[in-house]
């Protein structure tokens, strides 16, 4: 399978911009369930063309108990049982209606601390449901909810909100034609609405209306003897009645453990020394609790810590930038066998540049902080990776070996990190990536020979930390708080679908893109971090440096302006953030 995982439906995701850092534990709202099985029953008021109709909706949805920052939180399938009073059904739907199917789009709300985002859970459907009998009608709509990721620890609450409901009435099968007489087009449902006027036809004992018309004013074609759907779908918007708790489930995202630093308690250190700052806001003193202080929104980042995994972002870019011209890093190149031929051969001129470009976005997971940082945020002017493809090849067909080497220039924008926590104090910082040269790309493999295509992208980048705020208060770390030596980043991608050793994971391929991972990233110690004479190197090194970090990147399809100009049009796509769950 080429490229990354695609959700079953695209989701419109409207993020609500968040305010500044809020310290303090999350309010202890109900929670119907803390993860596990979310069950909720709410009263809704629906507005149909015919008027208001009150319904009851029972929501059932499984959620994971816990989740990890930077990894997808995937709600289970949603089941929504909408109970419509019989009188209302009769009033809304044409006389000949024997069964009804339905669709719904639900707006869900996701909150974490002060971060808040809406999600569109659309495409819920209910199958044909018979309207026989006199009981209230229950339509059960089901569907899938897209995943979401958070970049910080803290409880994530999923709530239900407004939904649209469309009913498709269906006449009885052939042989039972009915002819609805034109009549008053308004029909008010009796139910719990306060509407006074009711159509007397709505209350016949057997629940059928002799002369009702569809409540949206169109005349139902009751004579569709073939059983085709009666004309006149009925659509309404339903809002939860006020005063109810609409939280369906809460998923715990545990905070980092054991991050108390030697010599630095929550109150001590240069921060407290700045005077007057209350430490009373620090909360969640037990590091394993999920109720850590509300993580702040990264400045300017709508949705705060909540990252929609399905919102498409338009780049508006259809041309590449500057093609990098630089040598391949010989340390990154595999050894050449004695039968391998390297081109260009010695004495031959270099190949002309092979310009290409594309977007790569993703997460870096920092082991010590159990948190994730967005790399090249799709929502914050992501930067194109510029490629110069095919500088060098190694051909050894006798050994079924072909290798193509390229370079990539990737100058990432700063990432806002919102999870740094010292002594359990919410800390934000900007993390700047400083490339040390270009990335060298080595690709090997040939489908003909039944070999997976392997891509290895290696390069060095320093990170510099600045704009640090602890609990909202700036901590001056100086202009040069950076890694003492660069990170050695090695990303791997693999394309093997259909091959005997297909790993079953989405494929990566240079032109179509896909997942690239570095499972084994070491963050070196920090140097140059100083505040008013105090050396903070040890602070950052203890908090961040070490092995066990990872990078999870999605590369989008590349634009090849020379050979495939249409690959750049209408625009170079920005991929969705990685969704695939990692072990």
């Amino acid at each position, binding site marked *: 399978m080429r490229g990354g995982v695609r959700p079953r439906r695209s989701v419109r995701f409207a993020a609500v911009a968040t305010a500044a850092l809020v310290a303090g534990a999350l309010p202890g709202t109900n929670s119907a369930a803390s993860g596990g099985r979310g069950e909720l029953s709410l009263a809704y008021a629906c507005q149909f063309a015919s008027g208001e109709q009150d319904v009851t909706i029972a929501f059932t949805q499984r959620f994971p108990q816990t989740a990890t920052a930077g990894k997808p939180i995937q709600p289970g399938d949603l089941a929504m049982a909408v109970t419509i009073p019989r009188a209302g059904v009769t009033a809304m739907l044409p006389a000949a209606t024997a069964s009804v199917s339905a669709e719904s789009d639900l707006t869900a709300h996701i909150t974490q601390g002060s971060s808040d985002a809406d999600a569109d859970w659309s495409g819920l459907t209910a199958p044909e449901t018979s309207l026989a009998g006199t009981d209230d009608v229950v339509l059960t709509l089901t569907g899938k909810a897209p995943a979401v990721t958070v970049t910080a620890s803290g409880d994530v609450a999923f709530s239900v909100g407004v939904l649209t409901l469309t009913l498709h009435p269906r006449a009885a099968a052939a042989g039972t034609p009915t002819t609805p007489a034109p009549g008053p087009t308004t029909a008010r449902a009796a139910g719990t609405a306060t509407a006074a006027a009711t159509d007397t036809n709505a209350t016949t004992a057997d629940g059928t209306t002799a002369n009702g018309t569809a409540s949206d004013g169109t005349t139902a074609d009751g004579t569709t003897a073939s059983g085709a759907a009666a004309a006149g779908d009925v659509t309404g918007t339903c809002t939860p009645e006020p005063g109810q708790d609409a939280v369906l489930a809460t998923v715990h995202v545990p905070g980092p453990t054991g991050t108390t630093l030697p010599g630095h308690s929550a109150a001590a250190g240069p921060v407290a020394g700045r005077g007057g700052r209350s430490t009373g806001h620090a909360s969640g003193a037990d590091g394993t609790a999920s109720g850590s202080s509300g993580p702040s929104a990264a400045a300017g980042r709508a949705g705060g810590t909540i990252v929609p995994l399905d919102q498409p972002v338009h780049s508006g870019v259809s041309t590449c930038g500057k093609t990098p011209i630089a040598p391949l890093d010989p340390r990154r190149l595999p050894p050449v066998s004695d039968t391998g*031929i390297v*081109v*260009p*051969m010695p004495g*031959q001129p270099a*190949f*002309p540049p*092979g310009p*290409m470009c594309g977007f790569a976005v993703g997460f870096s997971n920092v082991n010590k902080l159990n948190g994730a940082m967005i790399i090249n945020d799709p929502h914050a002017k992501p930067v194109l990776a510029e490629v110069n*493809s*095919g500088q*060098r*090849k190694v*051909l050894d*067909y*006798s050994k079924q070996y*072909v290798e*193509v080497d*390229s370079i990539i220039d990737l100058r990432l924008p700063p990432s806002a990190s919102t999870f740094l926590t010292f002594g359990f104090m919410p800390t934000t910082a900007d993390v700047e990536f400083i490339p040390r040269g270009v990335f060298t790309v080595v*690709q*090997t*493999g*040939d*489908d*003909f020979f039944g070999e997976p*295509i392997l891509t290895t992208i290696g390069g060095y980048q320093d990170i510099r930390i600045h704009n640090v705020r602890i609990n909202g208060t700036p901590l001056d770390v100086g202009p040069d708080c950076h890694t003492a030596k660069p990170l050695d980043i090695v990303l791997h991608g693999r*394309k093997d679908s259909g091959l005997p050793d297909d790993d079953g994971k989405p494929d990566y*391929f*240079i*032109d179509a893109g896909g997942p690239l991972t570095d499972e084994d990233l070491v963050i070196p110690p920090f140097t140059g971090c100083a505040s008013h004479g105090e050396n903070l190197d040890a602070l950052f090194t203890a908090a961040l440096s070490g092995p066990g970090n990872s990078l999870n990147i999605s590369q989008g399809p*590349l634009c*090849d302006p*020379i*050979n*495939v100009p249409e*690959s750049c049009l209408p625009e170079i796509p920005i991929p969705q953030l990685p969704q695939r769950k990692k072990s």
Partner: protein
Amino acid sequence: MRKLSTLTRTGLVAGSAVVAAVAFAAAPANAAGTWTVSGGGSFTGKSTNSTLTDTSTGTQLKCTSSSAGGSAANGTGLSGTNIGTISSVTWSGCSGPLGITFNVTADGLPWHLNAVSYSGGVTTGTLTGVKAHIGGFGCTASFAGASSTATATLDVKYNNSTHVLSLLGTGNLHAYGVSGTCLGLINSGDPASYKGDYTLTPATLSITSP
């Protein structure tokens, strides 16, 4: 019929144009006015083993299927020259090294089938007028004959009992105008070979001589 000598794979001839002299010194007795075509008319040929090889580097491009449309008019006492016409050729599912997928397009159609010699139900001849180009991610190349502006001549065989038209993989095909990541895998001027067996339908075409 003399076969074109192919370059060995261990040598890499980069960038130099190799002009292959193709001498189809067909037995004159079989060349003109002795051919009979029956069961002719329009036909479609399908191949599932089409392979284009850069014979200098060994790089191969394979297509899962190719389809050709053509015709050969019935008659007797026909010249071998232009005994049939190929009016369309398409390829699908083509990929090369690193699994890069390619589009292949035939140029300069119609191409012409020429019968040169006949023996035991099998006609040997040529396909002339051949030009094509390939485009894939990171790679573009054209294919033509002895020079980039000359069309190529490919050796073919047709078997009356199997109704298979075979591109033998010999001829004077060369790569030109190579750009992109392909460079080094395919180079401008490299000789190339195209092989494929096309099964014709209807399975009626019969070519004999005399």
